[in-house]
């Protein structure tokens, strides 16, 4: 063995040893943290935090360090004894991280055990959930109704704005400006301000086009109609942008091919561009659906007795938030399947286009 390889050998050994040292100390720190915490569990400042915070990054560092040591060694001259060392140090580091996390979790749960019962009492009290269920559910049905109607209007209105924004020619310039201004304003305003202005402001103007207090449409009273109008204004701006990004993502050569076959501009849009654009924007469109569905709860500020109004009303009277939690669960039951369904649609569409067949 020449002196040179001897130095390399030592350096390699030292790297692997250092790796093992770092990882072992991280595990030791984590364990020590746990012990300290156990001994002084009564105190607020129990010393665990410092030890734990030190051990965790150290373990992560050890993991990266061990991994690097191993790669280097294997790259240079194949598996060797110190590769085993380095690998072992990595294993210890993984152990260190796991121990740290488990310790932290266990401590958190243990120290919060009594607290947890209070938490359950406030947010998940079964009697309160039961008492408020009927009221909250009735309100939530109104949320759903508003959502469905608003969504249909938003889809149509957003498309109209998107197309107006992409109209060709000088004659259509004012329409384009109008569309841009509309999108800028209503995407920039907080939804709650738009809702407030529309629902409380429009009736004050006493314009004949604003529905009077006695009108009703599809079972919605005048305030609910205004609420839906406000949501359509807000989400129409978002959805118009989504549509537009879809339209612009279709390569211009597709339009050229369609026009080259003699299709008119409108026909190219309808048969060639839009079908591709809409397919591409289904996921972002779905995000806006979910946003709209959630934002129906904002209408409670307008005095519409939807789910959130009902739930917070109950919470205020009973000093218990379980009714609101219940409403939250109602929302999740709708929104989570919606996202999963979108994923499914997108996947199926992609498979159909690339895997062929009818």
């Amino acid at each position, binding site marked *: 063995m020449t002196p040179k390889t001897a130095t390399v050998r030592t350096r390699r050994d030292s790297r692997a040893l250092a790796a093992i040292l770092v990882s072992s100390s991280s595990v030791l720190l984590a364990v020590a943290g746990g012990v300290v915490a156990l001994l002084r569990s009564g105190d607020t400042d129990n010393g665990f935090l410092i030890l734990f915070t030190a051990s965790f990054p150290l373990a992560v560092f050890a993991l990266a360090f061990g991994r690097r040591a191993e790669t280097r060694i294997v790259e240079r001259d194949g598996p060797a004894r110190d590769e085993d060392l380095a690998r072992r140090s990595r294993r210890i580091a993984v152990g260190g991280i796991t121990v740290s996390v488990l310790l932290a979790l266990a401590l958190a749960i243990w120290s919060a055990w009594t607290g947890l019962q209070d938490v359950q009492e406030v947010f998940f009290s079964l009697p309160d959930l039961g008492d408020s269920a009927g009221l909250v559910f009735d309100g939530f049905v109104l949320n759903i109704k508003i959502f469905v109607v608003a969504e249909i209007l938003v889809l149509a209105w957003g498309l109209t704005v998107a197309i107006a924004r992409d109209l060709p020619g000088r004659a259509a310039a004012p329409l384009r400006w109008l569309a841009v201004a509309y999108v800028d304003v209503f995407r920039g305003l907080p939804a709650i301000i738009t809702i407030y202005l529309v629902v409380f402001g429009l009736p004050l103007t006493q314009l004949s086009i604003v529905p009077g207090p006695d009108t009703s449409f599809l079972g919605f009273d005048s305030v609910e109609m205004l609420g839906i109008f406000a949501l359509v204004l807000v989400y129409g701006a978002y959805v118009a942008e989504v549509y537009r990004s879809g339209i612009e993502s279709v390569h211009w050569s597709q339009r050229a091919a369609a026009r080259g076959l*003699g299709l008119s501009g409108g026909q190219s849009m309808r048969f060639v561009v839009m079908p591709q654009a809409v397919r591409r924007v289904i996921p972002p469109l779905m995000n806006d659906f979910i946003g709209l569905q959630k934002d129906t709860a904002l209408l409670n500020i307008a005095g519409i007795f939807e789910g959130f109004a009902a739930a917070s009303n109950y919470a205020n009277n009973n000093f218990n938030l379980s009714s609101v939690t219940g409403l939250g669960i109602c929302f999740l039951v709708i929104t989570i399947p919606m996202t999963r369904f979108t994923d499914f649609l997108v996947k199926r569409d992609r498979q159909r286009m690339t895997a062929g067949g009818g």
Partner: protein
Amino acid sequence: MAHVSVADVVKRFGANTVLDGINLEVEEHQVVCLIGASGSGKSTLLRCINGLEATQGGIITVLGRTVIQDDIKLNRLRRDIGIVFQAYNLFPHMTVLDNITLAPRKVLHLSKHDAEERARPLLERIGLPDKADEYPDRLSGGQQQRVAIVRALAMQPQLMLFDEITSALDPELVNEVLHMMQELAEQGMTMVVATHEMGFARDVATKVCYLHRGQIIEEGPPEKIFTAPQNVRTSEFLKRTLDAGQM
């Protein structure tokens, strides 16, 4: 009267002059090949002929009608002009059959049945009758390009424009497409072909035009252009492409 007549046409993109006073006559049943380096204006000229690009000067007359940027007149004119692009540009969300029948149905207002009656023999002709219900992504490049050609033919055009349609194809797929173009030429279709395939130009063209910086600086029958070019630039260009093995 000439099928296509291009007189002193100028086309600019901003400060960049792409067509600089082009003159071209294409008679019925002629196959005119446009050759020249990339960026010499071949594709732009084709796009101007069917009005996909607006010109800044000169007059183009196609099938006795002047090409002007008027949507209704252009739509009417484009029914009679087929165009095929380098990148196929099939509609990816439609089956092969729908790709071919879309324009006959929506522009010529044929019924679905009639349009398919028209499409199926075309698919037979290119040997792809069993691909009718496939989506374009499932086809090879050569197959897609042949579908793109019959998609244009389904409108029964009187003039076909080909924009370097073999340039994006793998070498082994080029011949099936060239063969199809040759058949079309033999059936008497009037064609304007922008191409880098000198072999095709030599064998099939009635007239070859060499474009350089937006001008046709030499034109004539292929035997003359390829064996005894008059212009120095033409011979240099031909020598370069010959060296590159494209002949």
